[in-house]
């Protein structure tokens, strides 16, 4: 299982802040998880945002960062704190 979190604009557009995904053997990176979600169509296209940021187990990472079963991943828009 993979836990996926969404924040800010993504959370609003998707009308959910987290979901669980059954692990799929062909997944290698966070980009693969994103592609899986985007292909569901409709509001999921929000994740095609070129400014998308992501985290793996609460560490900022890149879409080409490796992912494995049991991870918590998060997708969110460019951060704007400070």
């Amino acid at each position: 299982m993979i836990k996926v979190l969404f924040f800010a604009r993504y959370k609003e557009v998707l009308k959910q802040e987290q979901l669980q995904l059954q692990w799929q053997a062909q997944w290698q990176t966070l980009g693969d998880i994103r592609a899986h979600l985007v292909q569901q169509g409709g509001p999921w296209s929000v994740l095609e945002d070129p400014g998308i940021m992501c985290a793996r187990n609460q560490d900022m990472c890149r879409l080409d960062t490796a992912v494995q079963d049991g991870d918590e991943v998060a997708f969110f828009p460019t951060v704007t704190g400070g």
Partner: protein
Amino acid sequence: MISIQVQTAPFDSGQLTAAVHGGNLAVGAVVSFTGYVRDFNQQKQVHGMFLEHFPGMTEKSLEQIAHEARQRWPLQSVQILHRVGELEQGEPIVFVATASAHREDAFNACAFIMDYLKTRAPFWKKEQTAAGSHWVDGRASDQAAATRWQQDSKDSP
């Protein structure tokens, strides 16, 4: 000493600044930064804002940023406080202070922490205007500011 706080309550940047020296006689310089909610941003009149964050990751990322600053410059203390939730015009949002023997190190470390915080800590601002509320876009200038620290030298860019 590193202190990280994430809270909804307002804070007094004065009290925080005064505490950073902490009676440590090796401290020659304290630099503090306080960020405030402005009434005008990106061509819009702003009445207030909501700050969302990623609980858990927020504290972790701020600690990593503080540790990275301590690796780059000799610092006696680093303090970072960031508010979340509802904020009004003129209220303080964020406070960062650094204490060091010399001013160059304190200035560079404080500016570095702000630049990294702006681009690597999971906070998102939603501004309230007369026309409704909207999520603030990331600024290219913030990305550029953070990039200037990615050279090998620990010195000022």
